[in-house]
Protein backbone atom coordinates (compact mmCIF):
# COMPACT_ATOMS: atom_id res chain seq x y z
CA UNK A 1 0.00 0.00 0.00
CA UNK A 2 1.25 3.50 -0.86
CA UNK A 3 0.07 6.16 1.56
CA UNK A 4 0.68 9.74 0.55
CA UNK A 5 -0.19 12.15 3.33
CA UNK A 6 -0.32 15.95 2.87
CA UNK A 7 2.87 16.06 0.82
CA UNK A 8 4.43 19.39 -0.05
CA UNK A 9 7.24 19.61 -2.58
CA UNK A 10 9.03 22.73 -3.78
CA UNK A 11 11.79 23.46 -6.26
CA UNK A 12 13.42 26.52 -4.73
CA UNK A 13 10.66 29.04 -4.18
CA UNK A 14 8.25 27.29 -6.48
CA UNK A 15 5.86 24.97 -4.67
CA UNK A 16 4.74 22.27 -7.10
CA UNK A 17 2.93 19.84 -4.83
CA UNK A 18 0.81 21.59 -2.23
CA UNK A 19 -0.47 19.06 0.24
CA UNK A 20 -1.49 16.00 -1.76
CA UNK A 21 -3.02 13.03 0.04
CA UNK A 22 -3.69 9.79 -1.81
CA UNK A 23 -3.78 6.12 -0.86
CA UNK A 24 -3.16 3.39 -3.40
CA UNK A 25 -4.08 -0.14 -2.35
CA UNK A 26 -2.47 -3.37 -3.44
CA UNK A 27 -3.69 -4.43 -6.88
CA UNK A 28 -5.17 -1.06 -7.64
CA UNK A 29 -4.54 0.96 -10.80
CA UNK A 30 -4.73 4.70 -10.21
CA UNK A 31 -4.35 7.20 -13.03
CA UNK A 32 -3.34 10.78 -12.44
CA UNK A 33 -4.44 13.26 -15.07
CA UNK A 34 -4.13 17.02 -15.22
CA UNK A 35 -2.45 19.88 -17.05
CA UNK A 36 1.30 20.38 -17.18
CA UNK A 37 2.73 21.92 -14.04
CA UNK A 38 0.00 20.42 -11.88
CA UNK A 39 2.59 18.43 -9.92
CA UNK A 40 1.67 14.93 -11.08
CA UNK A 41 5.08 13.83 -12.37
CA UNK A 42 6.85 15.41 -9.42
CA UNK A 43 4.72 13.39 -7.03
CA UNK A 44 5.83 10.16 -8.72
CA UNK A 45 9.50 11.11 -8.25
CA UNK A 46 8.81 11.65 -4.58
CA UNK A 47 7.22 8.22 -4.12
CA UNK A 48 10.48 6.35 -4.71
CA UNK A 49 12.62 9.04 -3.13
CA UNK A 50 14.23 10.36 -6.30
CA UNK A 51 13.07 13.78 -5.10
CA UNK A 52 13.01 14.92 -1.48
CA UNK A 53 9.84 16.43 -0.03
CA UNK A 54 9.46 19.45 2.26
CA UNK A 55 6.47 18.43 4.36
CA UNK A 56 4.08 15.53 4.83
CA UNK A 57 4.91 11.87 4.48
CA UNK A 58 4.90 9.03 1.99
CA UNK A 59 4.78 5.44 3.25
CA UNK A 60 5.26 2.40 1.08
CA UNK A 61 4.19 -0.81 2.83
CA UNK A 62 4.61 1.09 6.09
CA UNK A 63 8.16 2.30 5.32
CA UNK A 64 8.58 6.04 5.58
CA UNK A 65 10.24 6.96 2.25
CA UNK A 66 11.79 10.23 3.34
CA UNK A 67 12.86 9.24 6.86
CA UNK A 68 16.62 9.71 7.33
CA UNK A 69 17.26 6.03 8.10
CA UNK A 70 15.38 4.61 5.12
CA UNK A 71 17.47 2.50 2.73
CA UNK A 72 16.24 3.99 -0.52
CA UNK A 73 18.20 1.53 -2.66
CA UNK A 74 16.32 -1.29 -1.00
CA UNK A 75 12.96 0.48 -1.16
CA UNK A 76 13.38 1.23 -4.88
CA UNK A 77 13.75 -2.48 -5.61
CA UNK A 78 10.04 -2.89 -5.08
CA UNK A 79 8.97 0.28 -6.88
CA UNK A 80 9.56 0.13 -10.61
CA UNK A 81 9.36 3.38 -12.52
CA UNK A 82 9.12 4.05 -16.24
CA UNK A 83 9.98 7.53 -17.40
CA UNK A 84 8.77 9.64 -20.27
CA UNK A 85 12.28 9.42 -21.71
CA UNK A 86 12.99 5.68 -21.80
CA UNK A 87 16.60 6.08 -20.65
CA UNK A 88 18.03 2.91 -22.13
CA UNK A 89 21.68 2.32 -21.20
CA UNK A 90 23.18 2.80 -24.67
CA UNK A 91 26.37 0.82 -24.05
CA UNK A 92 24.50 -2.38 -23.15
CA UNK A 93 22.43 -4.72 -25.31
CA UNK A 94 18.71 -5.03 -24.62
CA UNK A 95 19.35 -8.20 -22.63
CA UNK A 96 22.19 -6.60 -20.65
CA UNK A 97 20.05 -3.53 -19.95
CA UNK A 98 17.47 -5.72 -18.27
CA UNK A 99 20.00 -8.01 -16.55
CA UNK A 100 22.13 -5.28 -14.98
CA UNK A 101 20.08 -4.42 -11.91
CA UNK A 102 19.00 -8.00 -11.06
CA UNK A 103 22.67 -9.00 -11.26
CA UNK A 104 24.16 -6.12 -9.29
CA UNK A 105 21.35 -5.10 -6.97
CA UNK A 106 19.58 -8.39 -6.27
CA UNK A 107 22.80 -10.37 -6.63
CA UNK A 108 21.29 -12.98 -8.96
CA UNK A 109 23.62 -15.35 -10.79
CA UNK A 110 24.22 -14.71 -14.48
CA UNK A 111 21.94 -17.62 -15.43
CA UNK A 112 19.11 -16.52 -13.14
CA UNK A 113 19.35 -12.89 -14.20
CA UNK A 114 19.36 -13.89 -17.84
CA UNK A 115 16.36 -16.17 -17.37
CA UNK A 116 14.49 -13.35 -15.64
CA UNK A 117 15.46 -10.85 -18.34
CA UNK A 118 14.40 -13.17 -21.16
CA UNK A 119 11.11 -13.81 -19.40
CA UNK A 120 10.33 -10.12 -19.01
CA UNK A 121 11.49 -9.21 -22.51
CA UNK A 122 9.29 -11.97 -23.91
CA UNK A 123 6.48 -10.56 -21.79
CA UNK A 124 6.77 -7.15 -23.48
CA UNK A 125 7.26 -8.69 -26.93
CA UNK A 126 10.99 -8.13 -27.42
CA UNK A 127 12.18 -11.74 -27.35
CA UNK A 128 13.71 -11.30 -30.80
CA UNK A 129 15.79 -8.24 -29.81
CA UNK A 130 17.90 -9.64 -26.99
CA UNK A 131 21.32 -9.05 -28.57
CA UNK A 132 20.43 -5.72 -30.17
CA UNK A 133 21.71 -2.39 -28.84
CA UNK A 134 18.98 0.08 -27.84
CA UNK A 135 20.11 2.61 -30.45
CA UNK A 136 18.78 0.25 -33.11
CA UNK A 137 15.28 0.11 -31.59
CA UNK A 138 12.28 2.35 -32.14
CA UNK A 139 11.09 4.57 -29.31
CA UNK A 140 8.21 2.23 -28.58
CA UNK A 141 10.53 -0.76 -28.41
CA UNK A 142 12.94 1.11 -26.13
CA UNK A 143 10.07 2.06 -23.85
CA UNK A 144 8.90 -1.55 -23.69
CA UNK A 145 12.48 -2.52 -22.87
CA UNK A 146 12.42 0.03 -20.05
CA UNK A 147 9.23 -1.60 -18.75
CA UNK A 148 10.88 -5.04 -18.88
CA UNK A 149 13.92 -3.60 -17.09
CA UNK A 150 11.75 -2.35 -14.25
CA UNK A 151 9.76 -5.62 -14.13
CA UNK A 152 12.93 -7.71 -13.90
CA UNK A 153 13.37 -6.44 -10.35
CA UNK A 154 10.04 -8.13 -9.48
CA UNK A 155 8.59 -4.90 -8.12
CA UNK A 156 5.37 -4.75 -6.11
CA UNK A 157 4.49 -1.37 -7.60
CA UNK A 158 4.94 0.19 -11.01
CA UNK A 159 4.92 3.93 -11.60
CA UNK A 160 4.51 5.28 -15.13
CA UNK A 161 5.50 8.88 -15.72
CA UNK A 162 3.87 9.88 -19.01
CA UNK A 163 5.33 6.75 -20.53
CA UNK A 164 3.91 7.44 -23.99
CA UNK A 165 4.26 11.23 -24.20
CA UNK A 166 7.59 11.22 -26.02
CA UNK A 167 6.56 8.59 -28.55
CA UNK A 168 5.50 8.98 -32.15
CA UNK A 169 1.70 8.52 -32.32
CA UNK A 170 1.90 5.21 -34.18
CA UNK A 171 4.12 3.75 -31.43
CA UNK A 172 1.86 4.68 -28.51
CA UNK A 173 -0.42 1.69 -28.93
CA UNK A 174 2.21 -1.00 -28.39
CA UNK A 175 3.33 0.58 -25.11
CA UNK A 176 -0.24 1.06 -23.89
CA UNK A 177 -0.95 -2.60 -24.71
CA UNK A 178 1.98 -3.63 -22.54
CA UNK A 179 0.72 -1.45 -19.71
CA UNK A 180 -2.78 -2.85 -20.09
CA UNK A 181 -1.38 -6.36 -19.85
CA UNK A 182 0.28 -5.49 -16.55
CA UNK A 183 -2.92 -3.99 -15.18
CA UNK A 184 -4.84 -7.12 -16.10
CA UNK A 185 -2.24 -9.23 -14.30
CA UNK A 186 -3.01 -7.38 -11.10
CA UNK A 187 0.08 -5.15 -10.83
CA UNK A 188 -0.37 -2.18 -8.52
CA UNK A 189 0.19 0.83 -10.74
CA UNK A 190 0.14 4.60 -10.65
CA UNK A 191 -0.04 6.12 -14.12
CA UNK A 192 0.59 9.73 -14.85
CA UNK A 193 -0.89 10.01 -18.30
CA UNK A 194 -2.43 12.15 -20.98
CA UNK A 195 -4.11 9.14 -22.57
CA UNK A 196 -7.54 9.80 -21.12
CA UNK A 197 -9.34 6.97 -22.89
CA UNK A 198 -6.70 4.51 -21.79
CA UNK A 199 -6.95 5.79 -18.21
CA UNK A 200 -10.68 5.28 -18.31
CA UNK A 201 -10.24 1.72 -19.57
CA UNK A 202 -7.66 0.39 -17.17
CA UNK A 203 -7.97 2.42 -13.98
CA UNK A 204 -9.79 1.58 -10.79
CA UNK A 205 -9.62 5.23 -9.83
CA UNK A 206 -8.70 8.44 -11.59
CA UNK A 207 -7.34 11.54 -9.87
CA UNK A 208 -7.47 14.94 -11.51
CA UNK A 209 -4.60 17.15 -10.34
CA UNK A 210 -4.78 20.90 -10.43
CA UNK A 211 -2.35 23.46 -8.96
CA UNK A 212 -0.49 20.85 -6.94
CA UNK A 213 -3.59 19.35 -5.36
CA UNK A 214 -6.00 16.48 -5.95
CA UNK A 215 -8.91 18.39 -7.36
CA UNK A 216 -11.21 15.47 -7.99
CA UNK A 217 -10.86 11.74 -7.48
CA UNK A 218 -13.13 8.78 -8.04
CA UNK A 219 -14.00 5.97 -10.41
CA UNK A 220 -13.12 6.58 -14.08
CA UNK A 221 -16.77 6.67 -15.03
CA UNK A 222 -17.34 9.37 -12.48
CA UNK A 223 -14.27 11.58 -12.98
CA UNK A 224 -13.98 11.18 -16.75
CA UNK A 225 -17.55 10.25 -17.63
CA UNK A 226 -19.36 12.63 -15.35
CA UNK A 227 -16.99 15.13 -13.68
CA UNK A 228 -18.40 17.01 -10.72
CA UNK A 229 -15.97 19.92 -10.83
CA UNK A 230 -16.06 22.56 -13.55
CA UNK A 231 -12.23 22.56 -13.87
CA UNK A 232 -12.17 18.82 -14.45
CA UNK A 233 -14.77 19.13 -17.17
CA UNK A 234 -12.84 21.99 -18.77
CA UNK A 235 -9.63 19.99 -18.73
CA UNK A 236 -11.27 16.94 -20.25
CA UNK A 237 -12.88 19.05 -22.93
CA UNK A 238 -9.47 20.47 -23.85
CA UNK A 239 -7.78 17.09 -24.24
CA UNK A 240 -10.44 14.77 -25.56
Amino acid at each position, binding site marked *: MIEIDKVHKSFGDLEVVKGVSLTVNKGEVVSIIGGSGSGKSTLLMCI*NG*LEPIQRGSIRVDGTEVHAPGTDL*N*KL*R*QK*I*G*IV*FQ*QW*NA*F*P*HLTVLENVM*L*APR*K*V*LGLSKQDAEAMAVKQLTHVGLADKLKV*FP*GKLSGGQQQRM*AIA*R*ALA*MSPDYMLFDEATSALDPQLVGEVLDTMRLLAEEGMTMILVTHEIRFARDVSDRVAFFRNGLVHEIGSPDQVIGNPQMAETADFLKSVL
Partner: protein
Amino acid sequence: MFSTSLTASDLLFMLQGAWVTLQLTAAAMLIGTLSGVLCGLLRAALPRASLPLAWVLDVFRSVPLLIQFVLFNSLKSIAGLDISAFAVGCLVLGIYAAAFCSEIVRSGIQAVPANLRRAARSLGMSYWQDLRFVVLPLATRVAFPGWLNLVLSVMKDTALVMWIGIFELLRTSQSVVTRIQEPLLVLCIAGLIYYLMSLMVAQLGNRLEKRWQEND
Protein backbone atom coordinates in the same frame (compact mmCIF):
# COMPACT_ATOMS: atom_id res chain seq x y z
CA MET B 1 74.43 13.82 -54.72
CA PHE B 2 72.68 11.51 -52.26
CA SER B 3 75.71 10.44 -50.31
CA THR B 4 75.47 10.50 -46.53
CA SER B 5 77.69 9.76 -43.57
CA LEU B 6 74.75 8.43 -41.57
CA THR B 7 75.64 4.97 -40.34
CA ALA B 8 73.55 2.10 -39.13
CA SER B 9 74.80 2.66 -35.61
CA ASP B 10 73.63 6.29 -35.78
CA LEU B 11 70.19 5.03 -36.70
CA LEU B 12 70.29 2.49 -33.91
CA PHE B 13 71.26 5.26 -31.49
CA MET B 14 68.21 7.27 -32.60
CA LEU B 15 65.96 4.26 -32.24
CA GLN B 16 67.22 3.81 -28.69
CA GLY B 17 66.24 7.43 -28.12
CA ALA B 18 62.81 6.64 -29.57
CA TRP B 19 62.49 3.78 -27.09
CA VAL B 20 63.18 6.22 -24.24
CA THR B 21 60.51 8.53 -25.69
CA LEU B 22 58.01 5.67 -25.67
CA GLN B 23 58.92 4.71 -22.09
CA LEU B 24 58.56 8.32 -20.93
CA THR B 25 55.18 8.60 -22.66
CA ALA B 26 53.92 5.36 -21.19
CA ALA B 27 55.07 6.20 -17.66
CA ALA B 28 53.72 9.76 -17.85
CA MET B 29 50.36 8.59 -19.20
CA LEU B 30 50.12 5.93 -16.51
CA ILE B 31 50.66 8.50 -13.76
CA GLY B 32 48.58 11.07 -15.60
CA THR B 33 45.63 8.80 -16.29
CA LEU B 34 45.39 7.26 -12.82
CA SER B 35 45.60 10.57 -10.98
CA GLY B 36 43.63 12.34 -13.70
CA VAL B 37 40.71 9.93 -13.35
CA LEU B 38 40.75 10.36 -9.59
CA CYS B 39 40.88 14.16 -9.79
CA GLY B 40 38.27 14.21 -12.57
CA LEU B 41 35.88 12.07 -10.53
CA LEU B 42 36.32 14.38 -7.57
CA ARG B 43 35.80 17.45 -9.73
CA ALA B 44 32.58 16.02 -11.20
CA ALA B 45 31.16 14.73 -7.91
CA LEU B 46 32.04 17.67 -5.66
CA PRO B 47 32.54 20.68 -7.93
CA ARG B 48 32.69 23.15 -5.08
CA ALA B 49 34.69 21.25 -2.48
CA SER B 50 37.30 20.31 -5.08
CA LEU B 51 37.81 23.89 -6.28
CA PRO B 52 41.27 24.19 -4.62
CA LEU B 53 42.30 21.07 -6.53
CA ALA B 54 41.20 22.76 -9.74
CA TRP B 55 43.41 25.76 -8.95
CA VAL B 56 46.47 23.56 -8.40
CA LEU B 57 45.82 21.62 -11.61
CA ASP B 58 45.38 24.92 -13.43
CA VAL B 59 48.92 25.92 -12.44
CA PHE B 60 50.32 22.73 -13.94
CA ARG B 61 48.25 23.20 -17.08
CA SER B 62 49.28 26.82 -17.53
CA VAL B 63 53.01 26.99 -16.75
CA PRO B 64 55.09 25.95 -19.79
CA LEU B 65 56.35 22.44 -19.45
CA LEU B 66 59.98 23.47 -20.02
CA ILE B 67 59.86 25.76 -16.98
CA GLN B 68 58.34 22.94 -14.90
CA PHE B 69 61.12 20.56 -15.95
CA VAL B 70 63.92 22.98 -15.11
CA LEU B 71 62.34 24.08 -11.81
CA PHE B 72 61.66 20.52 -10.70
CA ASN B 73 65.12 19.38 -11.65
CA SER B 74 66.74 22.26 -9.74
CA LEU B 75 64.47 21.62 -6.79
CA LYS B 76 65.65 18.03 -6.82
CA SER B 77 69.29 19.13 -6.65
CA ILE B 78 68.63 21.76 -3.96
CA ALA B 79 66.69 19.30 -1.82
CA GLY B 80 69.42 16.73 -2.42
CA LEU B 81 66.96 14.09 -3.59
CA ASP B 82 68.55 11.04 -5.07
CA ILE B 83 66.28 10.44 -8.06
CA SER B 84 67.23 10.16 -11.70
CA ALA B 85 66.49 12.77 -14.31
CA PHE B 86 64.33 10.12 -15.99
CA ALA B 87 62.18 9.86 -12.85
CA VAL B 88 61.86 13.63 -12.73
CA GLY B 89 60.86 13.60 -16.38
CA CYS B 90 58.17 10.98 -15.78
CA LEU B 91 56.87 12.76 -12.71
CA VAL B 92 56.62 16.23 -14.25
CA LEU B 93 55.10 14.94 -17.46
CA GLY B 94 52.77 12.73 -15.40
CA ILE B 95 51.46 15.64 -13.34
CA TYR B 96 51.14 17.75 -16.47
CA ALA B 97 49.14 14.98 -18.15
CA ALA B 98 47.04 14.50 -15.00
CA ALA B 99 46.03 18.16 -15.08
CA PHE B 100 44.69 17.79 -18.61
CA CYS B 101 43.31 14.34 -18.04
CA SER B 102 41.20 15.43 -15.06
CA GLU B 103 39.39 17.96 -17.25
CA ILE B 104 38.84 15.33 -19.94
CA VAL B 105 37.40 12.93 -17.36
CA ARG B 106 35.25 15.59 -15.72
CA SER B 107 33.65 16.64 -19.01
CA GLY B 108 33.13 12.99 -19.94
CA ILE B 109 31.25 12.33 -16.72
CA GLN B 110 29.17 15.46 -17.12
CA ALA B 111 28.21 14.37 -20.61
CA VAL B 112 26.26 11.41 -19.19
CA PRO B 113 22.61 12.54 -19.10
CA ALA B 114 21.23 13.05 -15.59
CA ASN B 115 18.10 11.12 -16.65
CA LEU B 116 20.16 8.01 -17.29
CA ARG B 117 21.64 8.18 -13.80
CA ARG B 118 18.15 8.65 -12.42
CA ALA B 119 16.99 5.53 -14.23
CA ALA B 120 19.91 3.58 -12.78
CA ARG B 121 19.16 4.78 -9.26
CA SER B 122 15.44 4.07 -9.69
CA LEU B 123 16.35 0.40 -10.24
CA GLY B 124 17.86 0.32 -6.78
CA MET B 125 21.47 0.77 -7.85
CA SER B 126 23.67 2.58 -5.36
CA TYR B 127 25.70 5.70 -6.18
CA TRP B 128 28.79 3.56 -6.75
CA GLN B 129 27.00 0.94 -8.85
CA ASP B 130 25.58 3.70 -11.02
CA LEU B 131 29.08 5.16 -11.38
CA ARG B 132 30.74 1.84 -12.10
CA PHE B 133 28.23 0.27 -14.50
CA VAL B 134 26.55 3.22 -16.20
CA VAL B 135 28.46 6.49 -15.83
CA LEU B 136 32.07 5.37 -16.29
CA PRO B 137 31.51 3.17 -19.36
CA LEU B 138 29.63 5.99 -21.06
CA ALA B 139 32.01 8.72 -19.91
CA THR B 140 34.92 6.65 -21.25
CA ARG B 141 33.45 6.70 -24.74
CA VAL B 142 33.05 10.47 -24.59
CA ALA B 143 36.44 11.13 -23.04
CA PHE B 144 38.47 8.69 -25.11
CA PRO B 145 39.22 10.86 -28.17
CA GLY B 146 40.39 13.67 -25.89
CA TRP B 147 42.54 11.25 -23.95
CA LEU B 148 44.06 9.93 -27.17
CA ASN B 149 44.93 13.47 -28.17
CA LEU B 150 46.62 13.87 -24.83
CA VAL B 151 48.75 10.75 -25.42
CA LEU B 152 49.93 12.12 -28.75
CA SER B 153 50.66 15.55 -27.35
CA VAL B 154 52.53 14.11 -24.35
CA MET B 155 54.59 11.95 -26.70
CA LYS B 156 55.78 15.07 -28.47
CA ASP B 157 56.23 16.99 -25.23
CA THR B 158 58.69 14.34 -24.08
CA ALA B 159 61.16 16.06 -26.40
CA LEU B 160 61.51 18.78 -23.77
CA VAL B 161 63.15 16.43 -21.26
CA MET B 162 66.37 16.70 -23.21
CA TRP B 163 66.86 19.98 -21.34
CA ILE B 164 67.35 18.04 -18.13
CA GLY B 165 69.80 15.71 -19.76
CA ILE B 166 67.79 12.72 -20.90
CA PHE B 167 68.71 11.13 -24.22
CA GLU B 168 65.37 10.64 -25.90
CA LEU B 169 64.67 10.73 -29.63
CA LEU B 170 65.24 14.44 -30.25
CA ARG B 171 68.40 14.61 -28.11
CA THR B 172 69.93 11.57 -29.78
CA SER B 173 69.10 13.04 -33.18
CA GLN B 174 70.86 16.25 -32.26
CA SER B 175 74.01 14.47 -31.27
CA VAL B 176 73.99 12.64 -34.57
CA VAL B 177 73.57 16.01 -36.31
CA THR B 178 76.52 17.38 -34.38
CA ARG B 179 78.65 14.49 -35.56
CA ILE B 180 77.71 14.14 -39.23
CA GLN B 181 76.49 17.72 -39.92
CA GLU B 182 73.42 16.66 -41.90
CA PRO B 183 70.60 18.28 -39.97
CA LEU B 184 67.95 18.04 -42.70
CA LEU B 185 68.27 14.32 -43.20
CA VAL B 186 68.54 13.48 -39.52
CA LEU B 187 65.61 15.65 -38.47
CA CYS B 188 63.50 14.21 -41.30
CA ILE B 189 64.22 10.74 -39.98
CA ALA B 190 63.48 11.81 -36.39
CA GLY B 191 60.22 13.37 -37.56
CA LEU B 192 59.34 10.19 -39.41
CA ILE B 193 59.93 8.10 -36.30
CA TYR B 194 57.69 10.43 -34.22
CA TYR B 195 55.07 10.17 -36.95
CA LEU B 196 55.17 6.39 -37.03
CA MET B 197 54.89 6.17 -33.24
CA SER B 198 51.90 8.53 -33.23
CA LEU B 199 50.31 6.66 -36.07
CA MET B 200 50.57 3.43 -34.11
CA VAL B 201 48.83 4.95 -31.08
CA ALA B 202 46.15 6.61 -33.20
CA GLN B 203 45.43 3.39 -35.08
CA LEU B 204 44.96 1.47 -31.86
CA GLY B 205 42.62 4.19 -30.65
CA ASN B 206 40.61 4.26 -33.85
CA ARG B 207 40.07 0.56 -33.72
CA LEU B 208 38.66 0.83 -30.20
CA GLU B 209 36.42 3.74 -31.11
CA LYS B 210 35.07 1.95 -34.11
CA ARG B 211 34.10 -1.01 -31.97
CA TRP B 212 32.11 1.27 -29.68
CA GLN B 213 30.44 3.12 -32.53
CA GLU B 214 29.09 -0.05 -34.04
CA ASN B 215 26.78 -0.26 -31.04
CA ASP B 216 25.38 3.24 -31.22
